[in-house]
């Protein structure tokens, strides 16, 4: 028996007797006999926590990737998370709280979410952010739903510069909503937009930077959207946002992004953090929860989830989003991480990522046979053409202790295409990388492509 049940045998007996029952199984006597499970669950017997921990630690030890110096990114970034952020974000008052349905006893989470919303709004250059979605892919899916409900149209022009997995998720959910998604190819690392007005277009979606790391001319995407009266959705990166023009300043209607870089560990892909911000006119179509400031009966400042009439529990089948549980803890963590970094720290951190990435890009493109995939500007991530399949190169680099990046081909967009070719490698540098890590990278890549 697990130790988490506080009941003593005597208490069980007394409670059963209060109910006029004899045995615990009598509690289930009203279930039809045919559906009662005979013989117990077909899973192993329980073990002590310490034995279970040992077992899982042994599994964890088999994840070789955890010990490699990580130059992989593409929406999952290996940033430093300082002890103070870990300590604060793991406070059980946040970790073990429920959704703030009772604002009088949930001011902690509510205020932290208000602060998070403020920070996401500033990062995006848009006035209003929600209290988080599941991840970047979910934010994109919700952005398309918002655009469709706002415009009454279903057409989407989706740049192939948007993360392939996000595009795959968008296609999955479009099977239900009926959105007509057209993917727009990249040429030279940036989107080759089709021109011409259309009357069916709800949204134009551009990655900024795109998933290969490149900065595209968002003004063109804005013009493509304007020509057809569509919304512009910019999929961005919160660290790059410290250095590049904000989505809002490019005229985005909606900003979506992956917020994992803000204090959440790589975590094999989750739980992450879907960033979502909009122009003020769109706020009543915002998916998920939003926290607003108000006052209590005594006039004290108070926070509460608001514009609740949008949400599924009230609107039911007329809701345009079914989101209930989101990623509050990651949002609170992001606010703490940004609080720790501060204005100058965020800028400096982003600058270090960019400086390291530019140095590495210059050095690896000196290796014979290795070329930059595009001449477009980038921030902290760039793509290489190796002129040979990437996977064996990554395997050789792993043997030298380096996770050399992400093979573009490994990011299956799920549409039968395999991304940007099997020789494209996407490389990311963060503030964790030191000069000797870059040296080791250059040596390992050089050796791998020379063999």
């Amino acid at each position: 028996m697990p130790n988490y049940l506080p009941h003593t045998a005597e208490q069980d007996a007394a409670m059963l007797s209060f109910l006029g029952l004899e045995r615990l199984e009598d509690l289930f006597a009203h279930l039809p006999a045919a559906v009662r499970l005979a013989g117990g669950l077909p899973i192993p017997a329980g073990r002590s926590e310490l034995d279970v921990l040992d077992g899982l630690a042994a599994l964890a030890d088999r994840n070789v990737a955890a010990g490699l110096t990580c130059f992989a990114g593409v929406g999952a970034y290996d940033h430093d998370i300082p002890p103070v952020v870990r300590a604060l974000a793991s406070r059980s008052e946040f970790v073990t709280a429920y959704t703030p349905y009772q604002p009088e006893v949930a001011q902690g989470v509510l205020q932290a979410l208000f602060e998070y919303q403020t920070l996401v709004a500033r990062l995006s250059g848009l006035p209003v952010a929600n209290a988080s979605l599941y991840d970047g892919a979910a934010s994109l899916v919700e952005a398309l739903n918002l655009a469709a409900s706002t415009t009454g149209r279903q057409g989407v022009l989706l740049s192939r510069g948007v993360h392939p997995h996000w595009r795959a998720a968008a296609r999955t959910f479009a099977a239900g909503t009926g959105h007509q998604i057209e993917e727009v190819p990249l040429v030279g690392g940036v989107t080759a937009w089709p021109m011409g007005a259309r009357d069916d277009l709800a949204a134009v979606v551009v990655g900024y930077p795109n998933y290969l790391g490149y900065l595209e001319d968002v003004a063109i995407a804005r013009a493509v959207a304007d020509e057809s009266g569509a919304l512009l959705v910019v999929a961005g990166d919160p660290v790059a946002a410290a250095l590049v023009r904000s989505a809002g300043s490019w005229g985005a209607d909606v900003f979506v992004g992956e917020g994992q870089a803000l204090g959440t560990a790589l975590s094999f892909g989750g739980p992450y953090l879907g960033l979502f911000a909009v122009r003020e006119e769109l706020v009543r179509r915002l998916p998920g929860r939003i926290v607003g400031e108000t006052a209590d009966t005594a006039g004290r400042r108070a926070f509460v989830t608001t514009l609740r009439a949008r949400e599924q529990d009230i609107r039911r089948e007329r809701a345009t989003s079914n989101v209930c549980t989101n990623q509050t803890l990651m949002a609170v963590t992001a606010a703490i991480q940004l609080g720790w970094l501060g204005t100058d720290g965020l800028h400096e951190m982003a600058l270090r990522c960019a400086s390291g990435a530019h140095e590495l890009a210059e050095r690896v493109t000196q290796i014979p046979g290795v070329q930059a995939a595009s001449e477009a500007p980038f921030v902290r991530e760039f793509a290489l053409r190796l002129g040979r399949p990437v996977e064996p190169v990554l395997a050789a680099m792993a043997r030298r202790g380096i996770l050399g990046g992400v093979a573009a081909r490994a990011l299956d967009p799920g549409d039968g295409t395999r991304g940007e070719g099997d020789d494209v490698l996407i490389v990311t540098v963060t503030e964790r990388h030191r000069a000797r890590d870059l040296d080791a990278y250059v040596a390992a890549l050089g050796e791998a492509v020379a063999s």
Partner: protein
Amino acid sequence: MSAAGGRAASAPLVGRESEPTMFELSSPGRSAAQLRETGIAPRALEAMIPAPHRRDDRLVTVDLAERDLVGHVTRLSARQYSVDLGAYPLGSCTMKYNPKMADEVAALAGLAHVHPAADASLTQGWLELLVTLEERLCGITGMAAATLQPAAGAAGELTGLLLMRAYHRARGDARRRVLIPDSAHGTNPASVTLSGYQVTTVPSTERGLVDLEALAARLGDDVAGIMLTNPNTVGLFEEDIEPIAELVHGVGGLLYYDGANLNAILGQARPGDMGFDIVHMNLHKTFATPHGGGGPGAGPVAVGESLVDFLPGPRPVRRGDGYGWEAPARSIGRVHGWHGNALVLARALAYIETHGAEGLAAVAEHAVLNANWLRRRLAAVLPAAFDRPCMHECVVTATALKEATGVRALDVAKSLLDEGFHAPTVYFPLIVDEALMIEPTETESPETLVALAEALERIVARAHDDPERVHAAPLATPVGRVDEARAARTLVATEDMAARAGLR
């Protein structure tokens, strides 16, 4: 009897002032950040990012000393109720104790420090973990295979409905409607709409169960399936599940099991044995992964044999003596940016492995024991909406109290906060007037149940003696009742909006 371990009335939520926002605490020039020495020469921004893309101003976030950041966040935490603090009898949410051991699992560097795009050869431990969890979840639910990608219950619902859709379409069968009982969670109808189907509502009987005749009348060959929560949202087991399954399968429809209430039947009955074809689970409810103040959750979806080929991909699979990824033949595609909320999945596996078959059965037994004990104990003051054995939660009604005293379910809930407990879910399910939905969970002791019952009895007595005091509650909390209308009328969702509204 000893004192109640789950009552938080002693919590030192000190001070009657508001906590300043981090932006009010901010002072330019302060900084907590310390970055490591890299030995890489910094470059000028201008040398890296050309003018049209370069920010022309500094992105101002907030400027805090580390000490002030720690003080601020810690004080916020003192203004927050949590499971660790006290009981959370929030119906339909299964706010049970979250074993600390799982925190250590999630913190293992070998799990937390793994990039999701790393090759399968470098992530064998994670793949084995995911495959093992899938097997356990299938064993627990009686299903053939599962996807671990959905990040929460609602994501699981939509995934399940898209599976239903793909199944029918593959048979050249364009069905249009999904049946949902009127007691269902709001996510159910919202998910149905997003899956491209239309909702047909099925009424409940006087007994709080699906009305079989009404169900039969709504069936037809355009029905894709039915979504059921069992036990349902009034905490009652749908005893007619066999005829329901027969009826729905009879017209070629599928049965979808909303796993919100799976905690009640662990080791006692399995959705697969009841005839369900698609099952979503809320790991953050049933398997005790912490809710995080509203997420992260995880909402795996398990299916029967006939739907395995449609599951989202890629799926982790056993391959020879190792593990790899595989896309099911007719997959609906991805439903998550990577592989799902992996660290939440690891916590859930740890919970399942510690409990095992017997432990999970004991969980359900004690969840049901606690709920029935409370239902019986409260009968005189807050009668159950349906006076019969319940499962893991009981729905009581304050209708009589309101008629006698003017005190409503909401007032009772707010008064409970002053008594040192989190409030139950109120005004849900929609089919019960003045509903209070109480789910004590198995991890609250009998002493805590007694304290909770006594608190509710005091509140009801107070409602008769001094209703104004009950209307005014809560008084012991950091803020009193909140002006929700004002928040919705004038949206102030950020510090900058507050400044524009003259609030700073």
